[in-house]
């Protein structure tokens, strides 16, 4: 079964959702695919049906507005849909989509990837203990289920997300044991000029910090969690001042939220032949793409945080730009919006991403015994041993030790492994690319990937004559 559309958009966050809306308004037949039950992406994630009513937040309002606009539009929405493979077939894109327990094909003339971001978490001893979740994971719990990660939570990490998560815990009635951030107050002060262009966001951040201070929540600037305690679940953490021989202080807690910056999800773009570049201020490896989403691959467009972490405001604006660009390329006369608002929002986003990036002082907290690859339980010492015998690329470590071949497909180990290779070989990070991405892009049961078939229908070539 295959259905054909003018445009397929993968990812219904601020960027993908707006790109779909603009292209549909220009008269094109658009299908919008997303793995969540409702559009919104991570940042505007919708509430689950378990929430009958709850106070609004800026994120829920933006998400509701996008969801309503999509409902009122001609965009065909495929929710709960996981795209696990994409191929070029003649003049169209063929997407393999897993939905309702079945895999089917969706085809389109043009493809917009709005795949967003995932999170980097620096491995430290104990970070695999149940009760440790990512900062981004915590926001998913808050937005979808309005559920707290525990009864008393240590919130740790870089950039603005750490304060947002701490503040959301307070808003949902929870207790923040401490906020631990590698950023210093000086780093934040130096980011102020870039933040001045978005006074509303700046004001919100200031309010989160002021509220935590009024509530006497300890805020440890220039610190990181060096160890998580607990067996079957978290019992506490140790936080240390970075760059000093600090024994650290302990906090009891039943949960930890931790994250060290967002990473663009580039696997699909890479798989389809888009060149990638290393730009730490955009979250690491980013695809080569125009501001309006155009790439050098015919009929392929990229938009939003998957092109570099610039934040939700910039993503929504870039989605509009990309929708208009695709519509124009497909022969529709459409108004091309100005790049200026996107550039302003992107400046703010870049400054936040620069504050959030992984740093060597935090990486130094990973010990030899710390698990780096969660899926295969590979320790730092295992990765170093592989590098020592000659593995100089992420692909080599993957082949040698299976780091990246477990259930997560390398989504949570590759940044740390690239940093280890760089440190051991003296190469810059810009020379250590992520491993070659391969389908499936998402886990898919083999029975569903294979579909229904009769063995008799399988083409079996005639054996070669002996």
């Amino acid at each position, binding site marked *: 079964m295959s259905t054909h559309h003018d445009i397929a958009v993968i990812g219904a966050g601020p960027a993908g959702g707006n790109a779909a809306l603009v292209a549909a308004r220009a008269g094109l037949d658009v299908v919008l695919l997303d793995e969540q039950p409702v559009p919104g992406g991570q940042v505007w994630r919708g509430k*689950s*049906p378990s929430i009958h009513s709850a106070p609004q937040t800026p994120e829920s309002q933006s998400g509701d507005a996008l969801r309503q606009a999509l409902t009122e539009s001609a965009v065909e929405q495929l929710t709960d849909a996981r795209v696990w493979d994409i191929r070029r077939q003649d003049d169209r894109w063929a997407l393999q989509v897993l939905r309702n327990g079945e895999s089917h094909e969706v085809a389109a003339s043009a493809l917009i990837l709005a795949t967003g971001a995932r999170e980097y978490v620096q491995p430290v001893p104990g970070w695999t203990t*149940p009760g440790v979740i990512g900062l981004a994971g915590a926001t998913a719990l808050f937005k979808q289920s309005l559920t707290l990660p*525990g009864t008393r939570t240590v919130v740790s990490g870089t950039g603005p997300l750490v304060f947002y998560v701490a503040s959301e815990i307070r808003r949902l*009635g929870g207790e923040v044991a401490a906020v631990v951030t590698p950023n210093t107050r000086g780093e934040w002060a130096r980011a102020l000029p870039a933040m001045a262009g978005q006074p509303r966001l700046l004001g919100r951040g200031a309010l989160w910090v002021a509220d935590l201070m009024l509530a006497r929540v300890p805020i440890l600037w220039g610190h990181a969690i060096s160890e998580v305690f607990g067996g079957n679940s978290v019992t506490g953490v140790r936080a240390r001042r970075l760059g000093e021989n600090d024994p650290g202080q302990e906090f009891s807690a039943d*949960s930890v939220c931790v994250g060290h910056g967002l990473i663009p999800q580039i696997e699909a773009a890479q798989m389809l032949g888009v060149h990638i570049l290393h730009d730490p201020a955009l979250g690491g490896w980013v695809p080569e793409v125009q501001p309006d989403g155009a790439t050098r691959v015919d009929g392929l467009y990229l938009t939003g945080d998957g092109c570099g972490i610039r934040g939700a405001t910039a993503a929504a604006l870039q989605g509009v730009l990309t929708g208009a660009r695709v519509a124009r390329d497909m022969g529709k006369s459409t108004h091309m919006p100005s790049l200026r608002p996107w550039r302003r929002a992107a400046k703010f986003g870049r400054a936040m991403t620069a504050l959030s990036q992984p740093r060597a002082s935090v990486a130094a907290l990973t010990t030899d015994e710390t698990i780096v690859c969660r*899926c295969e339980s590979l320790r730092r010492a295992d990765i170093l041993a592989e590098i020592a015998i000659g593995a100089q690329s992420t692909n080599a470590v993957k082949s040698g030790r299976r780091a990246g071949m*477990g259930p997560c497909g390398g*989504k949570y180990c590759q940044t740390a492994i690239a940093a280890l290779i760089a440190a051991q070989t003296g190469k810059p990070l810009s020379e250590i690319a992520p491993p070659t991405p391969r389908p499936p892009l998402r886990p898919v049961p083999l029975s569903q990937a294979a579909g229904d078939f009769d063995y008799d229908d399988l083409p079996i070539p005639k054996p070669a004559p002996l």
Partner: protein
Amino acid sequence: MIRLVPNHAPAIRRSEKVHFTFDGQSYEGHVGESLVSALTRAGHLSLRGAPVDGAPRGAFCCMGLCQECAVIVDGQVVEACRTDVSADLVVERVR
């Protein structure tokens, strides 16, 4: 104490509570919330053993990527963060 961020917890209205089982034990959850949400609220965080050494693992990314919350429903491995609670749902541990 002055709060700049209000406590919204009392203003949240949730769906009815139902029972489901995980690894043979009964838990309560709201219809339509994720299994991770319900089990986290119940304080049950360890969801599976790590594939190689069996060490305890629980929900980590909460967005369907890391596979640390894999559980079994109807004989199929699913992510607990992407599976909704329903009445009498039977959830098993991945062995």
